[in-house]
C-alpha cells in the first residue's frame, strides 16, 4: 500500500511540476498576474508530494518490505536501522528520489524566502526549477521507479553493499546533492534574468546567498567523500581523480568562479554575461555529473549499475536543459552590456583572471575525464588518464590562482599599479618566501616543491591578515575597525584561510607520509614515522551482520603508550564480500593508520602501517571554506533585504523595521 502511495505521489508531483514549469513562465511573458501567482503554491504542493514519496520509500526500508524490488536489492533484515535508512540513497533509483526531494526542499526555500522579489522573477525562477523537476520525475517514472514491486516478494534482501554501511556514506550523498541541486537555484535565477532581459545588480544580490550556500554544501559533500574514502578503503589516499570524483569537483570549480563573479556583478555591475554563463555552466556540470555516473560511459568504482536506456534519457534531458539555456544565452547575452569599465591592472581584471583560471582548471579535468571516451568513440585507440595526468596538468593551473588570493584583495578597483601593490605586500612576499622555503630544512630532506607550497600557504595567510588590518584601519581603534567589517568579509577571510590550510595538508602528507607493508608475527615490532607498532595477534569475533578478524597493534612513542589500534577484516554474511576496516588514531598533526592484510602461510600476518602527517588539514581546510561560505551568506544585507520586504507588505501596524541601508 505504502509503495503505491509513494508512486502515486510522484505522479501527482509530476503533474504539479508540469504546471509549475509552464503556466507561471507564460504568465511572466504575457503579464498575467494570476498565472504568475500560481508559482509558489505549485512549488509547495509539488514539494509536499515529493516529500511524501520519499517518506514512503524510507518507510518501506524501515519496515523491511521486500516486496519492493529496490528494497530487496539494497537492504536486509539484519541491516542496522541507520543503514536501512541510508540504503534509500544507496543505489540508482533511490538516489534519484533523493535528488528530487532535495530539489523540492530548495524550491520551497526559494518560494519562502523570496518575498522581496518581483512576481515576474519568482514566477520564472520557480518555473525553471519546476522544469528541472519534471525531468527528474519523468526519469524516475519512466525508467527508474523506486517503488517497483517484486512478485513474489523476496524472503530477504540482498543487503546494502558493505562499503556503504558506514556513517560517512550516510551523510555524504545528501550533502553532495544539496550542493549540486542548489546550483539549480543560481541557474534558475540566471535563466529568469535572461528571459526578463534584466541582468542588474539586484539580480546578483538575490542570487548570491543561494549560490554561496549551495557551494558550501558541495564543499562539505566533496570533503566528506574524500575523508570517507581515506578511512574506509584502506589505501591511505584521499583523492583518485576518479570520474565520479571529477564529476563533483568540476561544478565546485565553476561554482567558486561563480561566487566571485557574482560579487563583482553585484558591487561593480561588471561581468554580467560572464556571470550568467558561469551559472549555466555550474548547473550543467551538475547534470553532466549525473549523466556520467549513471549512463555507463565511464568506468568508476562509484558508478551506479545502469543500462544505456537510462543513459539516453539523461543525455536527452541534459541536451534539452543545457542546450536551450545556451541558445538563450547566445540570443540574449550580447544585448547585455556590463557597466564596468576598468583598467588592465585592477581588481576587476584580476577577478577575471581568477575566473579564467578556474574555468580552464575545470576544462582540464573535463578533458582528462572524457578523453579516453572520445578516442574510443572515434576509433583512435583505448587509453587511460589517471592521477599522474591530472596532477601534472591541474596543479600548475592552481598555482597562479592561489597567488591571486593575496594579490586580489590588495588591488584597488578600477585602477591600480602592480608596483604599488607589490610595495604594499612586500612584507608578505619576503616572509612567506623566506619562511616557506626554510621549512623543509627543518624536516631533514630538502624539497623545493614543499618549500614552494609552504611559501604559498604562508602568502595566503599573511596577505589575508594584512588585508584585514588595512580594512580595519579606518576606525578609532583596530578592534572597532574589525568589528565594523561585515560578515561577508569574514566569510572570505575564513574561506581563503581554508585554502592555505588545505595546501599545507596536501603538501605535507604527500611529501612526508610513510607507508609500509610488513610481515608481522605475534610479538613483532615495527617502527614507522617515529612510532613503534607491536603486533599482538588476531582474534575472531562477530558484528551485527558480519564476522570479523580483529588484529591488535600497540603503538608507543619513546616508550610511552600512545594507543591501541584494532584493524579488522570483515566478511559480511549476505554478500560474502571481504572488507578491510582500517584502524586510525587521528590527530591534528598526524594520523596513525593500520590495516590488516592476510594470514601468511607461516602464521604471521601482512599488515599495512601508515604515518600520515597533517592529513586532517586537508578536510579542515575544506571545512573552513564551507564555514566561510555560510558566514558570508548570512551577511546582514541579505537578512535586511528579507526584513525590508516584509516591512513593505501592507501592514499598517508598526514594526516597520528601519534597518540600516544595505551596503
Amino acid at each position, binding site marked *: 500500500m505504502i509503495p503505491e502511495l509513494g508512486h502515486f505521489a510522484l505522479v501527482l508531483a509530476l503533474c504539479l511540476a508540469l504546471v509549475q514549469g509552464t503556466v507561471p513562465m507564460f504568465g511572466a511573458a504575457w503579464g498575467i498576474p494570476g498565472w504568475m501567482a500560481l508559482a509558489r503554491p505549485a512549488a509547495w504542493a509539488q514539494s509536499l508530494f515529493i516529500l511524501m514519496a520519499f517518506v514512503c520509500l524510507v518507510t518501506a526500508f524501515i519496515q523491511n518490505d521486500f516486496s519492493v524490488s529496490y528494497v530487496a536489492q539494497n537492504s536486509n533484515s539484519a541491516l542496522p536501522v541507520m543503514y536501512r535508512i541510508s540504503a534509500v540513497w544507496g543505489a540508482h533509483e533511490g538516489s534519484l528520489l533523493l535528488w528530487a526531494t532535495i530539489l523540492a526542499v530548495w524550491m520551497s526555500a526559494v518560494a519562502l524566502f523570496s518575498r522581496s522579489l518581483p512576481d515576474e522573477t519568482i514566477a520564472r525562477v520557480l518555473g525553471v526549477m519546476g522544469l528541472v523537476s519534471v525531468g527528474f520525475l519523468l526519469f524516475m517514472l519512466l525508467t527508474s521507479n523506486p517503488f517497483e514491486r517484486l512478485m513474489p516478494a523476496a524472503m530477504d534482501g540482498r543487503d546494502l553493499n558493505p562499503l556503504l554501511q558506514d556513517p560517512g556514506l550516510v551523510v555524504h550523498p545528501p550533502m553532495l546533492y544539496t550542493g549540486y541541486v542548489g546550483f539549480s537555484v543560481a541557474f534558475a535565477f540566471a535563466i529568469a534574468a535572461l528571459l526578463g532581459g534584466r541582468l542588474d545588480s539586484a539580480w546578483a544580490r538575490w542570487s548570491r546567498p543561494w549560490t554561496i550556500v549551495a557551494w558550501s554544501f558541495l564543499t562539505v559533500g566533496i570533503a566528506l567523500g574524500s575523508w570517507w574514502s581515506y578511512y574506509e*578503503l584502506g589505501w591511505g589516499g584521499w583523492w583518485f581523480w576518479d570520474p565520479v570524483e571529477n564529476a563533483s569537483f568540476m561544478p565546485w570549480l565553476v561554482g567558486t568562479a561563480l561566487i566571485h563573479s557574482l560579487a563583482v556583478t553585484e558591487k561593480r555591475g561588471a561581468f554580467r554575461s560572464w556571470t550568467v554563463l558561469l551559472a549555466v555552466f555550474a548547473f550543467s556540470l551538475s547534470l553532466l555529473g549525473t549523466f556520467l555516473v549513471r549512463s555507463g560511459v565511464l568506468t*568508476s568504482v562509484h558508478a551506479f549499475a545502469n543500462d544505456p536506456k537510462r543513459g539516453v534519457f539523461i543525455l536527452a534531458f541534459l541536451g534539452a536543459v543545457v542546450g536551450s539555456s545556451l541558445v538563450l544565452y547566445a540570443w540574449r547575452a550580447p544585448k547585455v552590456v556590463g557597466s564596468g569599465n576598468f583598467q588592465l591592472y585592477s581588481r576587476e*581584471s584580476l577577478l577575471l583572471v581568477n575566473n579564467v583560471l578556474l574555468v*580552464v582548471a575545470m*576544462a582540464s579535468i573535463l578533458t582528462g575525464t572524457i578523453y579516453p571516451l572520445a578516442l574510443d568513440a572515434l576509433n583512435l585507440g583505448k587509453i587511460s588518464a*589517471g592521477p*599522474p595526468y591530472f596532477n601534472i596538468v591541474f596543479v600548475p593551473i592552481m598555482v597562479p590562482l592561489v597567488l591571486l588570493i593575496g594579490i586580489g584583495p590588495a588591488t584597488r578597483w578600477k585602477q591600480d599599479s602592480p608596483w604599488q601593490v607589490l610595495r604594499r605586500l612586500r612584507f608578505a612576499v619576503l616572509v612567506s618566501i623566506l619562511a616557506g622555503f626554510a621549512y623543509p630544512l627543518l624536516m631533514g630532506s630538502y624539497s623545493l616543491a614543499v618549500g614552494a607550497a609552504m611559501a604559498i600557504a604562508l602568502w595566503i595567510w599573511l596577505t589575508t591578515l594584512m588585508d584585514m588590518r588595512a580594512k580595519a584601519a579606518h576606525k578609532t581603534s583596530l578592534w572597532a575597525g574589525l568589528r565594523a567589517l561585515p560578515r561577508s568579509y569574514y566569510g572570505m577571510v575564513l574561506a581563503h584561510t581554508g585554502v592555505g590550510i588545505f595546501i599545507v595538508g596536501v603538501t605535507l602528507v604527500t611529501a612526508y607520509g610513510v607507508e609500509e607493508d610488513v610481515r608481522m608475527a605475534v610479538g613483532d615490532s615495527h617502527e614507522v614515522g617515529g612510532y613503534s607498532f607491536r603486533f599482538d595477534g588476531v582474534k575472531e569475533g562477530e558484528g551485527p551482520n558480519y564476522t570479523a578478524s580483529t588484529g591488535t597493534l600497540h603503538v608507543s612513542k619513546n616508550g610511552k603508550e600512545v594507543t591501541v589500534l584494532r584493524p579488522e577484516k570483515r566478511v559480511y554474511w549476505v554478500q560474502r564480500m571481504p572488507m578491510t576496516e582500517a584502524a586510525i588514531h587521528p590527530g591534528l598533526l598526524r594520523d596513525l593508520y593500520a590495516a590488516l592484510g592476510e594470514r601468511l602461510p607461516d602464521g604471521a600476518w*601482512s599488515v599495512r602501517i601508515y604515518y600520515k602527517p597533517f592529513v586532517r588539514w586537508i578536510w579542515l581546510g575544506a571545512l573552513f571554506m564551507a564555514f566561510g561560505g555560510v558566514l558570508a551568506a548570512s551577511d546582514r544585507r541579505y537578512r535586511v533585504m528579507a526584513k525590508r520586504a516584509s516591512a513593505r507588505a501592507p501592514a499598517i501596524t508598526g514594526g516597520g523595521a528601519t534597518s540600516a541601508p544595505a551596503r
Partner: protein
Amino acid sequence: MSGRFQAFMLLLALAWSAAALAAISVYDFPDAQQEHRFKHLINELRCLVCQNQSLAESNAGLAQDLRQEVYEMVSSGKNDDQILKFLVDRYGDFVLYRPPVEATTYLLWFGPFLVLLVGLVILIRTVRRRAALATGTLSAEEQQRLHQVLDQPKDKDQP
C-alpha cells in the same frame, strides 16, 4: 536481452576482485630506492579488471599477478621504461594511468595550457579595448565601429 545477459556474465567473470579489500602484499627489497621505484610503478599502472583502481590498490587476482611481475622485473634490474613497455606490449596503452604523449594525445596534454593562453590573450585584449573605449582613446577603425553601433535602432531590451 541476450546481449545484456552476456555483458552481465562477462562482468561477473571479469570482476572477481574484492575491491573493498586493500591489497596488502609484502615484498622484500634490497634497498629503499628499488622499493620506491616499485611503489611508484604500481601506482602508475591500471588494474585491468577493476572499476578504476591502480595495481597498488587492487586485490584482484590479475592485479596480484601483475604486481608480482613488476616486482620481479624491478628486482632483476630492468628500468622503468622497460617495465612499462612490457605491460603496454601485452595490454595496450589502457594499462597506463599516465597516457603517452603522441599525436592522438597532443590535445589531451597541451590542450588545457593552450586554452589558458588563448583565454588570457583574449582577456587582455578585451579589457584593453573596453578601457580604451571608456577613456576615449580609440583607433580610427574602432571609432567607425562605434558609430555603426550607435547608429543602429535602439533595442528595447537594453538594460
